[in-house]
């Protein structure tokens, strides 16, 4: 079965121990679009995002029910988590480049999946950095430690690293919350370009960001997906009163 680029979630519930963190979530995330998750802190945005690449497997006492499909694959039925994560990349809130050279950071993913030839790796590194609009910045420092880059550069490097294995979907959990406005702008621009080839799901606290870059927006509250729809509609004409209260800044 093939991993596709759309995500389909049906009747999903998630518990951390006794705590009901996601409540009957149903959502259809379209392919090659940017979908934003918004909502107050602790409402379950990251939790849902981490379901898509099964990073929640790492959390002890986390129980998940319901159906999560990516393309045709029911991801909680497959037992090859690594293949899932190859198809569904992730960018974290805090940039987390490995303590290695820029080159090795990007080559890490391809190497994981058995690519060893230098020429092939060179090509992937160049392609990924170009896609992340960093090639010109970094081509002379490929062998320098990635930890030496600025925060914004580190985050874009992490995006390049995620791109290195050509994921069909990229999950981003508040990727710009630790960055300055200029770096944030660059990453937003990048997202716009990346949706040509990949589906992007982004968690953000910044509502302007959601309106600027996303096609679809989901609003979460206390583990519920309160409203999901076109970004324009959500921000100009929300159907649910809670959504309206939130986007107009009445709480959260």
């Amino acid at each position: 079965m093939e991993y596709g680029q759309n995500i389909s979630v049906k009747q999903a519930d998630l518990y951390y121990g006794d705590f009901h963190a996601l409540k009957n979530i149903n959502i259809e995330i379209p392919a090659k679009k940017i979908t934003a998750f918004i909502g107050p802190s602790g409402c379950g945005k990251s939790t849902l995002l981490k379901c898509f690449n099964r990073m929640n497997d790492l959390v002890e006492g986390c129980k998940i029910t319901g159906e999560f499909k990516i393309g045709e694959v029911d991801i909680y039925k497959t037992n090859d988590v690594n293949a899932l994560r190859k198809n569904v990349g992730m960018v974290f809130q805090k940039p987390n480049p490995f303590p290695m050279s820029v080159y090795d950071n990007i080559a890490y993913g391809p190497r994981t999946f058995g690519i060893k030839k230098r020429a092939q790796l060179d090509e992937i590194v160049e392609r990924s950095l170009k896609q992340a609009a960093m090639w010109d910045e970094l081509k002379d420092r490929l062998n320098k430690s990635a930890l030496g880059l600025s925060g914004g550069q580190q985050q874009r490097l992490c995006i390049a690293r995620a791109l290195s294995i050509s994921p069909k979907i990229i999950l981003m959990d508040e990727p710009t919350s630790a960055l300055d406005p200029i770096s944030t702008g660059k990453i937003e621009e990048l997202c716009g370009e990346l949706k040509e080839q990949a589906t992007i799901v982004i968690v953000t606290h910044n509502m302007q960001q959601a309106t600027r870059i996303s096609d679809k927006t989901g609003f979460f509250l206390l583990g519920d997906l309160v409203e999901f729809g076109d970004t324009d509609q959500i921000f100009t004409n929300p159907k649910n009163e809670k959504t309206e209260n939130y986007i107009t800044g009445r709480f959260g």
Partner: protein
Amino acid sequence: MNSSKIKEQGGKAIFAGTAGICILAVIAIFVFIILQSIPALSKIGFTDFLFGTKWNPDANDIYANDLVGKYGILNMIVGTVFSTIGALAVGGTLGYFTAVYLAFFCKGKLKKIINTMVNLLAGIPSVIYGFFAIKAVMKLFNWMSPTGNATGLFMTSLILGIMILPTVTSLTKTSLEAVPKSYYEGALALGATHEHAVFKTMVPAAKSGIKAALILGIGRALGETMAVVMVAGNSPQIPDGLFESFRTLTANIVLEMSYAGEVQMGALFSTGAVLLVFVAVINILMGFVKTGGQKTKSKKSLPLWDKITSKINFGKIGKIACFVSAVFAGIFLVSLVVYILIMGLPHITGQLLFGEFEYGGEISILPSIVATLMTILLSIVIAIPLGIATAIFLNEYTKKGSRFISIIRSAVDILSGVPSIVYGLFGAITFVVLLGGSYSILAGSLTISIMLLPTVIRSTEESLKSVPDSFREGSLALGAGKLRTIFKVVLPSAMPGIIAAVILSIGRVVSESAPFMFTMGASIKPMPDGYMSSGTTLAVALYKLSSENLHTNEAYATACILIVIVLALNLLAEWVGKKLEKKLNGETNGIRTKHKRKAS
């Protein structure tokens, strides 16, 4: 897909298996030593053995005949308790005040220097302490002794005290530094002086940590062997004065093992078993302190103690005590090193270092150097992978509250508390016997390997803990499996700690002597011709040279070589740790500042 699953499962099984070795080792040590002591205990009689006050063994005693010798160890138990109390009085006090000094009263360069000195004190071999005590420290105190010879309880307590000082200091310091800074600020806000805040607020808050430090110090003092043998005097009697000769349990084993008869041997193993009981008690106490410290948060005040403390002006006295303790530790270290260098350097000759060894003739320590290197090589090859794998299991595969994990942890704790001489006993009845009954470098290396495990495990675990989870998440999110994540991302980031562990382990092999004496041999020999040869490490050679009292110059020279190696290793470990730490986080800064400059 399937093959990677198998690899992951296999990896986990191997890590778990190595971790299991620690449990196995603990069980084996207890079982073997106790099994060896049962025949002797039943022959001698349990109460006669424990409460008998006469130790007068007869090497011809065998289990089949009636006993001629006397085998009561009460005097040695009392001797061990006395010297431990003495050591605690000296080392506990000095260590405590030094820790407070380091934590609150000194800064910058001075702090670094004293810290390093305390670490170096921990690295100095037991034989060197003993040797320095006999050759130098004792001379300062001989006038106080009625016999004109300062061997005995006082000297032992002093030396043991300094030996446990680093343990007490570093643990106390850690727990003091773990007290939230807000407590201190709170105290100052109420008008307390710096000193008052330190002694009345910070120290009480770290109470359970300090207790743990003292208990660990007691454990070390109980198990210390070589230095004690060299300064205690060793007559099996209860000392009735500070300068009376006495004997500890550990010394009893070292002194008589090599020529013991059947029952006597059994009695020595029984002595080892008693030491293990002490170790068990210490571990249990430690458990109480750890859990009890959290439960009894409410302040139980000791009225008398409070009355006394409220009268004392902590500001001055406490600060002075701290300063004096730290300075004392520093002076002791410096004078030990300087004395041994001065006395030893002139006697380091070509013959000693590179010459042929002849029985009864010229001494050469080349065979000992070779034997030491062989032991280092083999024990590192064994202990480092096992220790790292165990640490990986403990840190990377932990499920919170897993029973298996907590059992392994206690096993590691117990292993690190078992006295080195007991390891020697264990090696003698397992590895030596397995390898055909004669001493060999192989048997010695295997013995010390088990001893190294706890150190390697702890230090690796520390550095694994310091690797941020975001690295692991980053790797897993790229589709890497757990094994790849561990080997390619986690371990390389933990490298500083691992390399420091290797260096410290080497230092340990060089410093130890008790585990080797009855596994690889205690008499200085010509060049070993393989791992099945017997031999002596440098430290054992020093013990031998100094106890024979014939080759004083060679002994000084050997001590000198030994101390240079040990100091170099300890300093190297510190330096490497810092250097690599910097390389991992700091190289960073260089480039980052460059980048910023460009931007502006």
